């Protein structure tokens, strides 16, 4: 399996009162093609900053980063922007759709940026919206869509250029439980379809869908485990344990 994303010794500092704060403090991380990885940690542990670094939205103060085998940590803004079109798909907690564009215009945008023809971009965008169950809302502006619909449009946008990896930052943070369930299902399907996925979350439900779980604290990765299959169903019933004490 090829390594889609590799980070070594990433560091990001911010000036604080007194000594600078290390938001990301020497992180090593790798994601294989088709792998779903979750990073869990309390708020303020640096998950969002790490995600920004991995996607080029912020520059590391030290360390190396490669995407698809290409060293990207020294890229200029412009080079990053061009690379990001096919390299990375973002899904944000706040959805971040361009509020002046309709759903389908939002989704086709990365394709148009890459140079795909208008027609091809539009049809690919509609295809994705169809797949994600929001094709009926294609011509609507974001503020006419519910949170769950907006996030699905955002996922479609992230997928349109078939990126190497999707970076998701608290994708369910702004959603009610029903919409969360939809996104969970969606991410599960993506994982099974072979899309590399890196999700920052503090929601246990989202984290538990991953193949590999990383725990982050104070800017560093402190634990890494494969989740694998769960215990037997009998054990499941036992964990419910409401059977009058009888096992």
């Amino acid at each position, binding site marked *: 399996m090829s390594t889609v994303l590799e980070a070594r010794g990433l560091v990001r500092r911010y000036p604080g009162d007194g000594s600078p704060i290390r938001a990301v403090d020497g992180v090593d991380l790798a994601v294989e093609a088709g792998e779903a990885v979750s990073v869990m940690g309390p708020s303020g542990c640096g998950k969002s900053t790490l995600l920004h670094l991995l996607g080029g*939205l912020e520059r590391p103060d030290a360390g190396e980063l490669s995407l698809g085998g290409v060293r990207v940590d020294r890229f200029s803004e412009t080079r990053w*922007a061009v690379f*990001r079109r096919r390299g990375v798909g973002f899904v*944000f*907690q*706040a959805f971040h*759709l361009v509020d*002046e*564009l309709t759903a389908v215009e939002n989704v086709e*945008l990365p394709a148009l940026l890459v140079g795909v023809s208008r027609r091809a971009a539009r049809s690919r965008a509609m295809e994705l919206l169809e797949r994600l169950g929001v094709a009926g809302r294609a011509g609507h502006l974001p503020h006419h869509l519910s949170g769950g619909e907006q996030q699905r449009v955002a996922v479609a946008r992230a997928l349109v250029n078939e990126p190497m990896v999707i970076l998701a930052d608290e994708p369910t943070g702004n959603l009610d439980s029903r919409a969360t369930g939809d996104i969970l299902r969606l991410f599960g399907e993506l994982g099974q379809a072979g899309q590399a996925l890196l999700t920052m979350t503090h929601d246990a439900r989202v984290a538990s869908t991953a193949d590999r779980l990383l725990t982050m604290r104070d800017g560093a990765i402190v634990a890494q485990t494969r989740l694998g299959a769960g215990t037997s169903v009998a054990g499941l019933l036992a964990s419910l344990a409401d059977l009058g004490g009888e096992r």
Partner: protein
Amino acid sequence: MRWLGLAVRLAAGNLRRRPGQALLLLLTLTIATGVLGVAMSLYGSADEPWNRAWRATKGFHVNFTVYHPPDEPGDRALVAALRRRASQLTGASGVVAVGGPWSHLYGSIQIGGGTEDLTAEVRDPGPYQVDQPLVTSGRWLGQGGGVVLESGLAATLRVGAGDTVTVQGRPFPVRGVAQTVSRGRFPLSRPAQVWVTPETARQLRGLGMTEEGFELQLHLADPARAADFVAAHRSLEAVPSSSSVVPYMETWQQRRSESHSDIDIVAGTLFAAGDLIGILTVATASVLIAGRMAAQIRQVGTLKAVGVTPRQVMLVLLVEHLAIAAGATAVGLGIGRLLAAPIAATSVTILGRPQPPPLTVTRVVIVAAVAVAVVLLGTVRPALRGIRQSTLRSLASGPPPPRRPGRLGGLAARAGIPLPGVLGLRSAWRRPGRLLTNATGLALGVAMIVVALALRDSLDLLDLRPPEPGHAASDAAVAILYDQIRAIILGTAGLLLVLATVNAWIVATFAARDAARNQAVLRAVGATPRQTVIALIVSQLAACMIAVAVGIPLGLGLWGLMEAGDLPEVRVSATSLVVLAAAVPVAFAVIVSVPARLLARQPVAPLLAYE
């Protein structure tokens, strides 16, 4: 009424916390109120010195002057009749003292390299019950020859007692210099005047000076009723229409109001300038106010907890802005009083030290009205939008959402315009409210540039007056006045250009700020910084095109309103307008590119953080 007090306290708190934009608004308003304040203070700042001189010289309450052209002595009978009428007047009821009648002789005096018309008033040495000129140098008429010069004439000739002047080609010693209010000050008031004794008059007649009329001055028991007296004796001014004799009766108030025409002209010009600047300020203020409101409405969450409704939020913001308007009024009036005296002192007509008149309610109200009007006009649109929205949550979500997309969005794409251009055009088209606000602001700026061009063209008018023979010196003095006015006009035109640029800068900066989040999203999905800059410039150029199309006719219309009726029309040349129409979008694109580029240089991540 309880929440009014709360509103005031909240407004005060807001102003203290984010003073930057408030200060900018205050500054913009103060430019308009300052100019108006100076104009207001100039009007009438010559009155007090005139009053002082009037009291000191026992100035007239009613003046009766008869003038006949010196080259036409044919109306001698009529003039004699008028003299009789004048002596009848001296016995009219209400008259308590009389000065004159004094004869006037017409001749010439040498000034600089040329000659100037001269009136010699013939008087016995006095003293007089009415119009006792105040001697400022030397002595009054008396034994021995010599002439007493009117103070303005002396100042123009730069002579004093003991010097010599050349009248009718002959040198005469200057006995003294004196001030009077019976006549305006030379050189703005023509002709020049000297006083002479009857003996000197005989000399002057021998040298060729001729009769041109006489003057009678009266004191009334009730000076305030001078107008009634004149009205009652209007018949004295009746002469056959074919005659060239001019009898003229005037009150002291009339004379005073005509005695300082140069200050009046300067004040009038400043007043018009202040109005223009006020209009432009509406544009700038509305952008500043809208931006300030949007920023504050987003923080409305805490207010909501106290149970405040959207209407009350609007009230708080209105209170804040009215407070700023009040501040601008006070500062403007203050500036007016400070600057009025030095400006008035440059006048050639003033009798003594100028003194700004006391602040009347009218003056304060006029200046305040302009400031409040600007603020209210700037507040209308955002306030209407705020009151129409029913929930605070929708208020808090930022700029108004784009309207439903039409098919025009697709048209642009189909036309083959590159992607950043398409994005920019969509951005402009789908937020019509903001497009209109920006276009209005810019249109006013363009209108002001058109007016500035017209003002500059109008300066040529001031050069067109042909020099008149016999008026060399006074023409020179008038030229100085015209230079002053020219300076004011040029200064106003320049100020308008500067303000239009500042206005464009503010519009551009707010546009960049509004677009910040969308720009960040674009960059996150792979648009290069250059592409986002182009998109922003294109979206702003849409507003700019509308502004040029509306602003040029608007500016021409405003200039048409402002033109004085008797001045020849000033047409801004079509070439200038075409150049303007081409140059403004280019200049605006350059202006927008600065905040756009700064924005593109900012890191993306903070803009995308979850709020």
